[in-house]
């Protein structure tokens, strides 16, 4: 799907043309947020669990080098081949080289936002390798030739009727059939054939344990297991921040992950992969792709604690009313808005501004990333690096001048025009934007300052 050069505001504007759909999208995700609240409240020690997760991840970020080396050594001992990729391109080349060596031209993939980040599907299709996503939601957006709009619920933007149409076109289900149970069964039947015939499988990684060299993949559909167990070659792709020190740490993260994500106590499948079965090849690709750069930014490094639960998306009032695609990046929502500028500040300069800084994201985050504070800080960086709208720069300069001088401020106010002329929503035609759907406040006959001068005085 081409999103052109439109920014979040413009894309949200398009999304909001259909208000009933916005309501549906908002309510669907609010339902997930409410389920998350219920699950969190079922655990009295929820807040200390979040604190524990946060501290474990802080430890990981401070000792990432050592944990990665430990993980690599353990994985090698287990008979796994470990690869290091500096960026998305190298990651894609590594995967391609493995597939080429096995003469694989078709493969299955499950649950990997990293491969979305690296645009692996597009890359492999250019090499004439056919990728089938096996996660149901991922498969639906793949059939629709769209990117996922959400990292846990990839097709949450699609109504069941639209999915019915897609399946009718691609899988031959009856026209007008939109029953989720029927459609899921149809997808399962179609995928079963795929599982049985593909020689190579790619999975993501939720947690990689330094102590043991194993990795854990969390799915609700069991598709990662089915793909990986049937394939001759299993390639697991992970960002380097997915490391946790010890197996026992899983007790903290597995309890938090799905409660935060969907309100379930745990994913249906938490699959541990440690060594290849006899005759199978297992590969792990450790990907940096900007993560060490982010690690070097003191204000933003702790964004790497993210375990990709998407609770911040579900709770975000802006995300719910603008849709994942309006963020034009693989990881949307509040967390995406603090990760993406690290990868390309110019391309994603709009994202830190796609927020009211309400702070709900920070409160739901199971690893306590201060998301809304980082959004504020990214705004400062983006302006300093010169990616601000020039019109906004002029407006801000005028504000600075006005608000730094009590005399100018008062005179402007006395004329009854101060706010209309100099407040942010009234400069550079922005007055029209406020007016489009809202009335301006009524101008009072006098300011508080003027009233005070007439009626009161300081002792």
């Amino acid at each position, binding site marked *: 799907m081409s999103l052109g050069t439109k920014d979040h505001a413009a894309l949200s504007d398009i999304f909001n043309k259909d208000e009933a759909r916005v309501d549906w999208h908002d309510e669907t995700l609010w339902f997930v947020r409410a389920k998350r609240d219920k699950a969190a409240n079922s655990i009295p020690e929820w807040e200390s669990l979040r604190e524990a997760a946060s501290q474990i991840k802080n430890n990981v970020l401070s000792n990432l080098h050592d944990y990665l080396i430990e993980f690599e050594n353990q994985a090698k001992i287990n008979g796994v081949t470990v690869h290091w990729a500096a960026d998305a391109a190298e990651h894609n080349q590594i995967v391609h080289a493995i597939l080429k060596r096995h003469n694989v031209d078709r493969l299955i993939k499950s649950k990997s936002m990293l491969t979305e980040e690296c645009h692996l599907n597009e890359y492999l299709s250019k090499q004439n390798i056919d990728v089938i996503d096996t996660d149901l939601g991922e498969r639906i957006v793949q059939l629709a030739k769209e990117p996922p709009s959400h990292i846990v619920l990839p097709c949450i933007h699609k109504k069941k009727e639209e999915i019915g149409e897609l399946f009718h076109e691609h899988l031959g289900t009856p026209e007008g059939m939109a029953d989720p149970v029927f459609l899921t069964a149809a997808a399962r039947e179609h995928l079963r054939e795929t599982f049985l015939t593909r020689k190579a499988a790619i999975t993501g990684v939720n947690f990689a344990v330094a102590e043991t060299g194993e990795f854990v993949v969390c799915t609700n559909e069991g598709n990662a297991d089915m793909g990986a167990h049937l394939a001759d070659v299993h390639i697991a792709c992970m960002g380097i921040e997915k490391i946790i020190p010890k197996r026992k740490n899983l007790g903290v993260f597995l309890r938090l992950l799905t409660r935060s994500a969907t309100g379930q106590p745990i994913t249906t499948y938490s699959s541990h992969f440690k060594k290849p079965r006899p005759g199978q090849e297992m590969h792990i690709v450790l990907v940096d792709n900007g993560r060490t750069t982010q690690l070097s930014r003191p204000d933003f490094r702790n964004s790497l604690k993210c375990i990709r639960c998407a609770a911040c998306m579900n709770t975000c009032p802006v995300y719910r009313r603008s849709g994942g695609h309006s963020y034009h990046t693989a990881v949307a929502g509040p967390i995406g808005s603090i990760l993406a500028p690290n990868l390309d500040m110019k391309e994603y300069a709009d994202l830190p501004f796609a927020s009211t*800084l309400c*702070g*709900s994201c920070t*409160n739901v985050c199971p690893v306590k990333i201060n998301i809304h504070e980082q959004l504020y800080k990214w705004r400062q960086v983006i*302006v300093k690096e010169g990616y601000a709208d020039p019109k906004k720069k002029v407006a801000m300069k005028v504000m*600075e001048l006005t608000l730094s001088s009590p005399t100018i401020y008062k005179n402007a106010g006395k004329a009854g025009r101060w706010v209309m002329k100099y407040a942010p929503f009234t400069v550079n035609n922005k007055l029209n934007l406020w007016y489009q*759907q809202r009335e301006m406040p009524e101008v009072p006959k006098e*300011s*508080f300052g003027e009233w005070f001068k007439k009626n009161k005085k300081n002792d």
Partner: protein
Amino acid sequence: MNVGLFIPCYIDQFYPNAAIATLNLLNKLGITVKYPVNQTCCGQPMANSGFEHLTQGCNDLFIDNFSEFDYIVSPSGSCVLHIKDHLHSPTEENKALGIRKKVYELTEFLTDVIKVEKLSARFPHKVGVHQSCHGQRGLMLAQMSELVEAPYSKPLHLLKMVEGLELVELSRPDECCGFGGTFCVAEEAVSVKMGKDRVADHLNHGAEYITAADMSCLMHMEGILRRQNSQVKVLHIAEILNAQ
């Protein structure tokens, strides 16, 4: 007790009644308040837009106007939070730090410092309370729905002392209204949609008035209410706590 009254610029210019009610309420509770007449703005509109580096003029003015006080009280959670988090000075950092520690939003000042236990106020209406995000999640004026913690609310604690006032329950007790400073125009479509949804929650539950500890959220919601020709009004919490 030497208390300074900080009235944010947009309240000064557009909602003087909220400021007058704040002043009168404090006086009624026996607090003598000084209003430094050379104050302008906390600088938040620029800082939240990414132009924090242009706020030194505002910061310097704020320090000049307010460093003498024991407490600084303001009828705006958002502006207070900005001062608390971001007031700095290259030459007088100690004064800036001092101010950051003694600046209070009105309801937290009444609850935590004055420890108000009763009010002589009467407001026989159904009122919906909008929990403004910066006050609630930033200053922690009330427990947040995301956290697994015991409930409390400083604004509600005070509103419950008002005779005749009936609080309405909301479906989403602490969702953002979508004002967000320059967000309200930079992201017009989403901002308005958020505001419409928030207003609808209050209307669906029969509110006659919507109140908050932040006038900016109310200004946004008032703009939507008036465009809808609704009879529902917005009032700053000080106006209700001071109502007779």
